[in-house]
């Protein structure tokens, strides 16, 4: 199966006053094309930090100290991948929200309360699909001009069209330049030079000034009331927004696009966040506990939505959750995280039928089930403090099978059976 994104030996630290929190301890995970991949663990185990590192949005004082994040979908050379940790911020900006997008736990905090929903959903179209929007607007204008009309209105339309065409030309030129730079960068990366980063930054700054290059655009900017011509573009974007919202089952999308986030319920807000994430048809959707603040019946709606989107629109989903039930329900493959380590990775069926790592076993046994009989099993103790994590295997103080070797060195991740990876000394050198 074709890999989509892979992290290799990822370490992320947070420098705090109490010490360095070692949130990730060499995380390696792979998301393949076309699968729904689950990342499970208790709170504080580093699952959110892992995906934030993957998107390169770890907030200060967090820092990715070591490791690689390889993407394969954009590669000039698809088999080797591009290490996005070594790319510029501009490169990341062109990826985030376009080919990888993310939805967060609390919809109400990821939406801006003072901007209308139409504006917030439309932002992705403006940012990542500007060329397409401009083309459509020009096509609309051409059509209207073809129908004739009052000459003053015609003049206005001709002018608008010229401005949009100018902007489109500049944008295409810019994107071509970016592509060339990307190629150059990829080649230079092999040679190990950081020089083109500066040139790319300059290009990125140029993007903001696009459309204001010509005399016409200059007039448009200076003369009061002239900027109204851009409303045409807004109208095209709004049309796409409404279409998108309708496809996600938002009732009455025209009215909702005019409204503001506080007017909506939690489930509806989460749909809006999903709409923003899906605006550009990403290849990978990262969902960070998208349903944990919602009620069960609303959670079921959102889960069904993500499932159906997975079939129709998105290639892969990386689903982060602490709810093992959700993992069983929607994921194909899953990893269990504990205290910054990936403990076990397997297909969901294997993971639930034949858990290998003692932590996975304990976790599965401690969830109340429908067919629960007798006392619930527990894992003794609590999640360790990551400022001063246990040596060796970070699970050993709570592990019922702890051995002397577990205290020493972190156990290597081995492939116990095809596709079933586990990091535990119980299974090293072919035991069991």
């Amino acid at each position: 199966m074709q890999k989509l994104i892979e992290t290799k030996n990822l370490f992320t630290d947070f420098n705090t006053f109490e010490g360095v929190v070692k949130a990730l301890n060499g995380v390696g995970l792979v998301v393949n094309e076309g699968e729904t991949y689950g990342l499970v663990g208790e709170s504080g185990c580093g699952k959110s930090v892992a995906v934030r590192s993957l998107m390169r949005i770890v907030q200060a004082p967090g820092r990715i100290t070591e490791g690689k994040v390889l993407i394969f979908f954009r590669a000039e050379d698809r088999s080797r991948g591009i290490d996005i940790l070594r790319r510029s911020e501009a490169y990341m900006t062109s990826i985030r929200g376009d080919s990888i997008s993310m939805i967060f736990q609390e919809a109400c905090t990821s939406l801006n309360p003072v901007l209308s929903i139409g504006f917030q959903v439309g932002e992705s179209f403006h940012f990542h699909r500007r060329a397409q929007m401009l083309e459509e607007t020009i096509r609309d204008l051409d059509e209207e001009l073809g129908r004739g009309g009052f000459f003053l209105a015609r003049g206005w339309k001709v002018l608008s069209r010229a401005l949009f065409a100018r902007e489109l030309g500049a944008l295409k030129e810019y994107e071509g330049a970016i592509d060339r730079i990307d190629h150059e960068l990829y080649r230079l990366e092999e040679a190990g030079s950081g020089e083109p980063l500066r040139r790319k930054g300059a290009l990125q700054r140029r993007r903001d000034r696009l459309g204001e290059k010509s005399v016409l655009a200059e007039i448009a900017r200076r003369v009061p009331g002239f900027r109204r011509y851009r409303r045409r573009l807004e109208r095209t974007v709004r049309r796409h927004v409404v279409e998108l919202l309708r496809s996600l089952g938002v009732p009455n999308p025209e009215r909702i696009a005019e409204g503001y986030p506080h007017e909506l319920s939690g489930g509806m807000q989460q749909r809006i966040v999903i709409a923003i994430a899906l605006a550009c048809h990403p290849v990978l959707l990262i969902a960070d506990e998208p349903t944990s603040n919602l009620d069960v019946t609303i959670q079921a709606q959102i889960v069904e939505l993500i499932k159906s989107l997975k079939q129709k629109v998105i290639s892969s989903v990386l689903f982060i959750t602490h709810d093992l039930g959700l993992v069983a329900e929607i994921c194909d493959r899953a990893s269990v995280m504990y205290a910054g380590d990936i403990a076990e990775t397997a297909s969901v069926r294997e993971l639930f039928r034949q858990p290998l790592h003692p932590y996975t076993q304990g976790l599965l046994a401690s969830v109340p089930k429908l067919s629960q009989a007798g006392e619930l099993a527990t894992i003794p103790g609590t999640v360790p403090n990551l400022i001063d994590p246990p040596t060796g295997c970070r699970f050993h103080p709570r592990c019922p099978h702890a051995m002397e070797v577990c205290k020493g060195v972190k156990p290597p991740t081995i492939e116990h059976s095809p596709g079933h990876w586990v990091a535990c000394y119980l299974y090293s050198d072919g035991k069991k």
Partner: protein
Amino acid sequence: MSEPLIDIRRLVKYYPVRGGVFRRHVADVKAVDGVDLAIQRGECLGLVGESGCGKTTLGKTLLRLHEATSGRIYYNQPAPQVEEVERLLASERDGDRAAAWARLKDMDITRLGRSNLRKLRQRMNIVFQDPSNSLNPRMLIRDIVAEPLVAQHLIKARDVEKKVLDLLHVVGMGAGHLKRYPHEFSGGQRQRIAIARALATSPEFILMDEPTSALDVSVQAQILNLLKNLQRDFHLTYLFVTHHLLVVKYTSDRIAVMYLGKIVELARTAEIFQRSLHPYTKALLSAIPIPDPDSKRERIILSGDVPNPVNPPKACRFHPRCPFVQERCREMEPLLEDAGSGHAVACHRWREL
């Protein structure tokens, strides 16, 4: 059948909504709207529902942390007396009703006087949802756990330490934790402290208000087991409020399902899971994610959200979301009726579905 410890009759709790320049009373949030429920002595009754359905309000009104708008809550009253008072209340004659009201002063939690209420508070207690908010960060664990005893003047100063230590041992903690502050503990340990505090006055009844929803799975299991053991050892009665159906299934003897301020179904735990009758219960059950990749279920996906309790739908409150809605459901409110062997359901169509 054993006598109910708490007998709730027609309990109503409205929160006023004020608006306009003069803060006039413009509407009510109908949090609890006519609930009848009996909690048997020694049982664990699970109360489930979505957020905003009024389950926490109901629980807190029982402890009189909120004042009820109307209705009666009988605590530990012999059934014949309760029935007699109820009969008098329903009577046509003014004299009968006046006599009933006079008697209610000593029987009904919502009408108890100060000193009686104070005595009652020794026998009822509560464990809150988030232990990081319910423990005072500036008090030592010793003082937190001893506070109910000190407030009720039940203990001499020199006995405090020993008593607190006993309580901490009961919840699986030790002497080393006495002189520390809440922030030094993990979520699970904090919840243990909150439980020790709830047990301090040896109550009969404890309201569990989502005691594990702020905790992680592996810790949740520890706390649930602890609660079960405590109930057995101290003959406690629980009202277990939660939105997590699998948790109540594990802890509770009976389950009451609440929707928008009303009880829609009440039955023994096994019965709810095997033979749920109300469409809302069915949808709720089918919506729980089951930690088993091979489980095959038919899913009922409800459309829409929980309506606003300020202006709940008329007649059956579930009808705008119900997949089996009929004309009748929009016109007449279904009452909670018996469906055999203690199973009660409020739906017009339960026989057909």
